[in-house]
């Protein structure tokens, strides 16, 4: 992996994606070192998407042991892994996906890791987290100039958050302007590369947004999944477990609290959600993990406009929304 030139074998293997994002993006990808924290359904989808593209290394960090429920959404493990460490259990399948990528495994608890550990990565993706951990990891990433993503899936719903730093530069390809004296033959598929800049805010800042200031039109296009995250977080804080059958009243009670705290009407989030926001549903992990994986690829390659700064998926409405939530 030291040579800068892309080998014939790599060209063959990555042919279909190089045709999409170009050779320069591929060269950046093969130098990147990525950390995935949390190897649930969503984490495993992201691992698959990132390993397939051919990054330099990926580190799988999770202290948990596999439980029965993981088998409904985690694509890197098999039923005989139950009761074994889930990061370790994912290693072989991850390696099979692409022998060119170095797979590292760490079964430590994320809170036991120091800043030096995180410093070795270009991108960190945090899943299965609570708000406290999100805030902490975001702070470390800001400090160390690491691109930060965090996301989760609750049943039919999912989301992820992105912070690529205060100032993020990227390039886009735009159609070249046609000049009159250019010969006719030049009219096809000419593009030029231009530089763009955008700003991201931190997760802590995003939580400061005053939703009552949103216009009616903006609210109409906003996703209620943002509040499902908070309800889910609060439920787990209160009960120390994800919601199950019979938790309907408790969830609705938290819903009322969360919405009124944000100055939102109760009708903004329909009560139906309670039957559909339990453990991770595989197709939702695939959808959120697909969009999230692509955003990580964008962030590594510095190519194309990133989704700034939240993505929400609502599986009852079949709707995927990108929204900028900032103070």
């Amino acid at each position, binding site marked *: 992996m030291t040579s800068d030139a892309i080998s014939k074998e790599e060209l063959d293997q990555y042919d279909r994606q190089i045709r999409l994002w170009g050779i320069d993006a591929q060269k950046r990808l093969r130098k990147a070192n990525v950390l995935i924290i949390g190897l649930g359904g969503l984490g495993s989808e992201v691992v698959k998407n990132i390993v397939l593209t051919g990054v330099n290394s990926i580190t799988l960090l999770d202290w948990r042991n596999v439980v029965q429920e993981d088998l409904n959404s985690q694509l890197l493990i098999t039923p005989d892994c139950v009761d074994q460490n889930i990061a370790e259990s994912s290693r072989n399948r991850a390696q099979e996906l692409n022998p060119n990528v170095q797979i590292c495994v760490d079964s430590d608890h994320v809170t036991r890791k120091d800043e030096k550990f995180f410093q070795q990565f270009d991108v960190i993706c945090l899943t299965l987290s609570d708000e406290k951990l999100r805030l902490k990891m975001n702070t470390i990433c800001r400090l160390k100039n690491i691109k930060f993503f965090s996301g989760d899936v609750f049943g039919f719903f999912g989301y992820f958050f992105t912070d690529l730093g205060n100032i993020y530069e990227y390039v886009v390809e735009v159609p070249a302007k046609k000049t009159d004296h250019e010969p006719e033959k*030049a009219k096809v598929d000419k593009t030029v590369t231009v530089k763009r800049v955008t700003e991201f805010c931190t997760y802590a800042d995003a939580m400061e947004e005053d939703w009552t200031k949103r216009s009616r039109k903006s609210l109409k296009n906003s996703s209620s999944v943002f509040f499902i995250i908070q309800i889910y977080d609060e439920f787990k804080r209160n009960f120390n477990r994800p919601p199950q059958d019979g938790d309907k009243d408790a969830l609705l009670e938290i819903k009322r609290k969360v919405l009124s705290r944000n100055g939102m009407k109760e009708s903004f989030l329909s009560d139906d959600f309670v039957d559909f926001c339990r453990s991770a549903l595989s197709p939702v992990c695939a959808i959120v993990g697909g969009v999230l994986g692509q955003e990580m690829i964008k962030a590594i390659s510095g190519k194309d406009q990133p989704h700034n700064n939240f993505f929400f998926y609502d599986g009852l409405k079949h709707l*995927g929304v990108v929204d900028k939530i900032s103070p």
Partner: protein
Amino acid sequence: MAGLCNNALPETLKKVVQEAKLFVVGAGGIGCELLKNLALTGFRNIDVIDLDTIDVSNLNRQFLFQKKHVGLPKAQVARESVLRLCPSANIVSRHDSVFNPEYNMQFFKQFDLVLNALDNTAARNHVNRMCLAADVPLVESGSAGYLGQVTVIKKGLSECYECNPAPRRKTYPGCTIRNTPTELIHCIVWAKYLFNQLFGEEDADQDVSPDTQDPEARDPESGDGVNNAESSSLKHKPIIQRKSTREWAQDYDYDATMIFNKLFDSDINYLLSMDKLWKKRKPPVPLSWQQTNADNVESVAISDIQDVLSVKQNAELFSASVASLKKQLKGEGDGGMLVWDKDDTAAMHFTSAAASIRAKIFDIEQKSIFEVKSMAGNIIPAIATTNAVVAGIIVMQALCILRKKLDECRSVFVCKAANATKKLLVPCLLDPPKPGCYVCAEKPEITIKLDASKLSVIELRDKIMKSALGMLAPDVELLDGRATILISSEEEDNDEENLKKPLSEFGIRHGTRLRADDFLQNYDIIVNILHETGFPDDSIFEIVSKTDLALDKIASENKSANKAQNDVKNEDEDVEIVEEPDISCTVDRKRKHSSTTSNSTENNEGKRRKMSNGAEQIDVDCDVVVLD
């Protein structure tokens, strides 16, 4: 046991999911992701079919396959790979074509749902018809680069796949290819024809020599291109006249220098002699082997396939690839032939070299082997992430159907950037079936313009019934009160001689009605013939309408009324705002915009384009689609 206790599913769905029987058509990019999602979600009865074997270029996204599986059947390896995830699943793999008559209406009826993960229009059309015939809901899908689409097809309730006919194949007039190329793609098409003429199956429609019948080359006085050309320059007669290119090449034992000089020197000189062609065009500049300073070499070292090669390099690449293909052809034995394949290095080098040299001669910008391969192979870029999203959406639609909430199913578009209403995955209401659809209407009917005195029975069968209308084995009879049989689906019942005769010999004229029927697809259609002469370019017929145009109008009005109630309407308000000059996004906005005006044709085209973009085997126009 995984799945039995999938708590992500509401109680009402657990049992349904576990017992549902699914047919997955395709185990490629979307198929691999889909099978994984289905098994994890708890589906236990899955049949998967795919005709393909695994190629190394699949490995960047078709994650159920590894390098050691290259060459093995996709369906089988995908099954084994998913069984590791979920040993309790009951998966049947079929390394077979879905067109096989074994998969008849009875076969389709055994499934609760059919999920398409296909890459070509012909198979999509066929599965569409089989699902309509068996009345099984179908989830249809496609992806191309960052874009994707999923939709639900339910007989009588939503549009079928063929309610919006696919844009016809992008074809280039023969004389542009043979005489007056202006774009690199013309030279690439020419080079692929040349491959077939020299090494593959010869096809009369794929001639590569100068076309003396080019209407533009004709002298208005004599009206005869050949005379005109010959009288103006007799010394440049083409070297061969009666012999086929293949025979000629064989006579010289595929001598690369000889072939080079014929194609790029004498044939070009002959073209120059058709002087009418060059009155308003820049004339080509002939190039002989000697001028290139190239050596006849056995092989060429290409340091970077992303470089544009020099004339000398291309000439040497031409020579080396001719030598290599000659060897391959010999290996096939007497009467053997090669099949053009973008993944065959020699075939691709030959195509790129020949196209580049021809481009140089016509002063057309050349491109690298890498880019020529994209164009020649109609390669649509494909990535794991888009396929993962599309496959996820397929399962979400499937769950919605199984919850018996068909009204909550959506046609979902996967976009590259969010639109002005923040939507990245855009759900749209399912459109009702088109009353005039020539496939899903109660009594399908179609009107076709053709020249009955020229179009033969075999052309009616192959180019119209099979190719344009997607039938596999049509029976065609005249609605003349006697049900005269014109074409039988049983090959041996057809008289060879009769097949070659024009339709007029069987009493087919303006206003004649035919009945065509495909037994396997359980599909029956009335064809109204309009006799007309003088078709432009190479076309021989034209599909005018699907039944009554008035019906289409009503349908489009209904549609816009429907749309008004839909969330799509919101997007229209902001349609003028284009914050990012992103190519794919512009197309998307255009589509959205048109879908809310009553311009149904444009709307349908937009939708269809996206779908057909997912086809790896579809035509050269895919590039054009994104750009226009």
